C-alpha cells in the first residue's frame, strides 16, 4: 500500500471512531487533493465511466477466411451483380427485402430462437493469440496461448482458483467487422453509460476485521443516470443511489496493495441495457483489478469472468427489450454476423462452468476494461 493510503486509512479509523470500518473509495481522490480533507468521514465510491469489452482487433492471420457476413451481406452476395446494384444504392430497398426485422412469432426469428435454426458456421479466431488475460494472482499477462478448452466438471471445480481467465469471447467476435478497432462496437462504446441506460457503481471498503486486511468491494447497478459534463464525459463526485434490487448488489473480497485493488472470485449480476436492450450481465467467478491513480482519483483496470451463456444469449444474441421483442437481427446485421452462427460459436468456445451431466461448458471467458471516477454511493447495504 502506498504511504499516502496508509496514512489516510489510519486517520479515518482514528478520527471517525469507527474502528474496523474504513472507506477507501475516495482515497485516491483525497490523496490527489481533489477532495476536501474535511469530507473524509463520508463514505466514498466510484462511478464506472467506461465499461468495454476488450476487443484487441484481428491480426492479418487471425481470420484467414475473412470476416463473417451479416444477413444483408449474405443476401447481396447471393445476387447477380446487376440485381445487387439497386439494393446497394438504396438501403431502404435492402431493408424491405430482408424484412421482417421484428417477428411476431419468435420461432421464426433466427435471433429470438437461434437454437431452433441450424448452425450456419461462424468464423472465429482459432490460432494462438497474444492478448491480455487475468492471472490467478490478480496480475495480467499477455502470453501467446491457444484457445482455452472446456474443462471437465471436476477439473473446473478444483482448479478454478488457479485458472487464468481467458478472453474466449474475443475469439468468437474477432472475425466480426463491427468488433474491429474502428467498428460499430467501438463507436458505441460506453454509449449505454452516457445515455443513462446503464449506471454501475463501485464501493470499496467495509469490514477490515480479517487478519489479512482484506476489504469488501461492492459492485452495484444504479437506476440513476450519470450526469455528463460539458466535455461529454460522466462527471465525478455524483451522488448516486444503488438499485433497490438486491440481485444487483454484488460483493467481493478485495485486497489493496501498492495502489492496486484486486478481488477474489465473485459472481456479478448487473443491469445491462442499451437502446432497446433490457437485460442483465451475469458473470460467474469474476475478478476485478483496478489501479487507483493517486493524482487524478481515477480507478482503471479490468474485469474478467465467465459470461453465463443464457445471460449472453439474452443480452448479446436475442437482445431482448422490455416487450420481449428481439432486436438481435438488426444488431447482427449491423455488426456482420448471424445469430445462430454466434449462438453455436459461443457454445463451441465456451470454457467455463461445465455442466455436470452433459459436460458442456455453460459460460465463456470475457474481459472488460473498466474506468471509474470518484462518486458517492448512496443507499448501499450496511457493510458486513
Amino acid at each position, binding site marked *: 500500500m502506498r504511504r499516502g493510503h496508509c496514512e489516510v486509512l489510519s486517520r479515518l479509523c482514528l478520527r471517525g471512531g469507527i474502528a474496523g470500518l474504513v472507506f477507501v473509495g475516495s482515497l485516491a*481522490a483525497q490523496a490527489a*487533493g*481533489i*477532495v*476536501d*480533507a*474535511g*469530507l*473524509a*468521514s*463520508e*463514505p466514498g465510491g466510484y462511478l464506472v465511466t467506461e465499461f468495454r469489452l476488450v476487443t484487441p482487433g484481428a491480426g492479418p492471420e487471425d481470420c484467414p477466411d475473412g470476416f463473417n457476413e451479416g444477413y444483408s451481406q449474405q443476401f447481396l452476395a447471393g445476387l447477380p451483380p446487376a440485381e445487387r446494384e439497386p439494393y446497394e444504392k438504396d438501403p431502404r430497398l435492402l431493408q424491405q427485402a430482408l424484412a421482417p426485422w421484428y417477428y411476431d412469432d419468435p420461432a421464426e426469428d433466427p435471433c429470438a430462437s437461434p437454437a431452433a435454426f441450424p448452425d450456419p458456421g461462424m468464423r472465429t479466431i482459432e490460432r494462438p493469440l497474444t492478448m491480455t488475460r487475468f492471472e490467478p494472482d490478480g496480475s495480467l499477462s499477455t502470453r501467446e496461448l491457444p484457445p482455452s478448452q472446456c474443462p471437465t466438471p471436476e477439473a473446473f471445480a478444483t482448479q478454478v482458483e488457479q485458472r487464468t481467465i481467458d478472453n474466449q469471447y474475443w475469439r468468437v467476435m474477432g472475425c466480426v467487422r463491427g468488433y474491429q478497432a474502428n467498428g460499430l462496437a467501438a463507436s458505441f462504446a460506453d454509449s449505454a453509460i452516457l445515455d443513462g441506460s446503464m449506471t454501475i457503481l463501485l464501493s470499496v471498503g467495509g469490514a477490515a476485521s480479517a487478519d489479512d486486511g482484506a476489504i469488501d468491494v461492492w459492485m452495484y447497478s444504479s437506476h440513476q443516470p450519470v*450526469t455528463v*459534463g*460539458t*466535455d461529454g*464525459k460522466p*462527471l*465525478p*463526485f*455524483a*451522488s448516486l*443511489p444503488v438499485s433497490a434490487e438486491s440481485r444487483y448488489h454484488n460483493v467481493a473480497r478485495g485486497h489493496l496493495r501498492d495502489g492496486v485493488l484486486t478481488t477474489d472470485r465473485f459472481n456479478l449480476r448487473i443491469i445491462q441495457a442499451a437502446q432497446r436492450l433490457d437485460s442483465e450481465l451475469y458473470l460467474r467467478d469474476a475478478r476485478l483489478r483496478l489501479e487507483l491513480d493517486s493524482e487524478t482519483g481515477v480507478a482503471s483496470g479490468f474485469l474478467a469472468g465467465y459470461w453465463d451463456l443464457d445471460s449472453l444469449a439474452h443480452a448479446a444474441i436475442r437482445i431482448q427489450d422490455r416487450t420481449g421483442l428481439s432486436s438481435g437481427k438488426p444488431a447482427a446485421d449491423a455488426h456482420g454476423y448471424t445469430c445462430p452462427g454466434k449462438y453455436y460459436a459461443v457454445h463451441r468456445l465456451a470454457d467455463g462452468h461445465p455442466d455436470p451431466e452433459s459436460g458442456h461448458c455453460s459460460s465463456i471467458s470475457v474481459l472488460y476494461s473498466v474506468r471509474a471516477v*470518484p462518486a*458517492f454511493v*448512496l443507499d448501499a447495504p450496511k457493510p458486513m
Partner: protein
Amino acid sequence: MPEARYRRVVLLLCLVVWAAGAHASGQVSQQAQETDAVVAMYRLTQTQYRQSIADIFGDGVRIYGRFEPDYRRDHLLATGSAWASVSPSGFEQYERMARGIAEQVLGAEQRARFLACEPDAANARTDTCIQGFLAGYGEKLFRRPLTADELASRLEVVAQVLEIGGDVHEGIQYALASLLASPEFLFRIEAVEPEPQRPGETRLTGYSKAARLSFFLWNTTPDTQLLAAAERGELHDPAGMRRQVKRLLASPRLETGMRSLFADMLRFDTFPEVSKDAALYPVLTSEVAQAMQEQTLQTLMQHLLVENADYRELFTRESMPMDRRLGMVYAVPVTAPEGWDSYRFNEASARGGLLSQASLLSLHAHAGSSSPTLRGLFVRETFLCQTVPPPPADVDFTLEEGFAVEATARERLTRHRSEPVCAGCHHLMDPIGLTLEQFDGVGMYRTRENGHLIDVSGELDGRQFSGAKGLGQALSEHPRVPECLVNTVYRYAGGPQDDTVQGPLLQTLNAQFADSGYRLRDLLRQIATSDDFYSVSVSDDWAI
C-alpha cells in the same frame, strides 16, 4: 379594413397616446410648480418589470421582447436605474412587450379573469365598464390613480379602434397596451407635493413613498393595500408608515425583494456572461451555474431572513444548501434525490463562509483559471465598499507573458507586484484573493496548481490569516463590513444621496444596525421607517 392598414392605424394611435400622455404629464407638472413635481425617475429593471407584470396580471402572462440592458452604477443596478433611459429601439421592444401582454390579458381565453363586466361598444368614451378596467389597471401600472386626462386619452383609443373597424375588446387591448408602454409605467417616477405642516417645504407624495417602499422591500409594484394606504395619506403618518413596513417585512414577498437586493449586490446579472473552458471545467453546465446562484441566495435568505442571524456570521457560516448538481462541484454527497438539502462543512474542511461558495468563486475568475486579483477586487468593492482604481491606461500586458512561466498564481502575482506600476493596486487585492486559491475557476477544491502545493496565506488591512476560513473570520470581524452593507442597502433602496441627509442617516443606521446585532430585518425596518429616507431635495431642474 385590411390588416396591414389596421395595424398601422392602431400603432399611430398608440404613439398619439404616448405623446398625449407626455403632454398630460407636462400639464400636471406645470401645476406641480405649486403641487406635484417630479424629482426622480428610475427605469424599471428587467426583474422589476417582470415582477410588476406578474403581480398585476398573474404569473401566466408571458413577456415577449428584449429588455433594454440594465445599467450598473456605483456597483448597483438599482443605482443605475436612476440614470437609465429608453432608446428608440428599446422603446420598440417595450411597445412590443406591451402589445403582447395586452393581447394575453384581453384575448378571448383569459379576458374573463380581468374584465368582469361587458363593455358597451356604443358608448366607449363613457362606459363605466371600460372606465373601471382602465382606471383600475392604470392605477396598478402607474402606481397612482390616472389623471382625468390620462384616462380620457385611453378611452379615446378605444373609441377610435371601434371607429376604424375593430371590436371593443381590441380597443381596450390597445388602450391597455398604451398604459404598459407609458413612461409612467416604465419608470418609477417620484414626485413631491407641498408639506402642509411646513409651508414652503415639500415631501414625497404618498404614492411615491409607497413605490419607493415597495420596490425597496419587495422589488415590485405596490400592492392594493399599500396604494390604499397612500391614498388615505397614512404614509405621511409615522404610525401609518410603521404599520405598512411591518406588513411588508412580515410578507413572504420580502424574500423576493431581498433576493433581488443580493443578486444586484453580488452581480448575479453578469452570470450569463460567464464563459468557462469546457474542457477544464466540465462540471459547469448552465444548470449548475443556475444552481450556484440559487445556493447563494438561499444561504442569504436562510441566514438573514429565516434565522435572522448576525450578518457578519455569513462569512463564517459552515452550512449551505446543496443539491446533487452542486454536490459534484463541492465533491460532497447529497442524499436528497430532488431539490435541496443542507450540508455542513466540518472543522477540517477548507471550505466555510459565503466567500467559499462556488457562485462567487466562479463569477470572479477567468475562463480557464482562478483569479486572486478579481476575487480580491470583488471583496474590496462589495463587502468593504472600497474603490480600487482601474489599471492604468499604459499598463504593459506583455509583462504577463513573462510571469506565465511561474507555476502558481502566488508566484505570478508576486512578480507582478514587483512592477511598481502594478503594485499600487494589486497589493490591495491579491493578498485577499490568494487565500481563496484552493478553489479553482469554478470553485472546486484543489491543493495543487501545476503540481505545486498552493499556499493560501494572505492579509487584509494588516491582519494576517490563511485560507478561505481565515478570510471569512477576518471579514466577519472587520468594522467596515457591516457599514458597507448598510451603505449598500441604503443605496439600493434609493435613499437620498444628498450628503447633508445621507451622512447623518447612515451614521444613525450603522449605530442601530450594531445595536440590533447586525440583523438585516432590523436594518430594513430602520431604513424604511426613517423620515429621512423619504426626504427629498427639490431642484428646479427636476420639474418637467
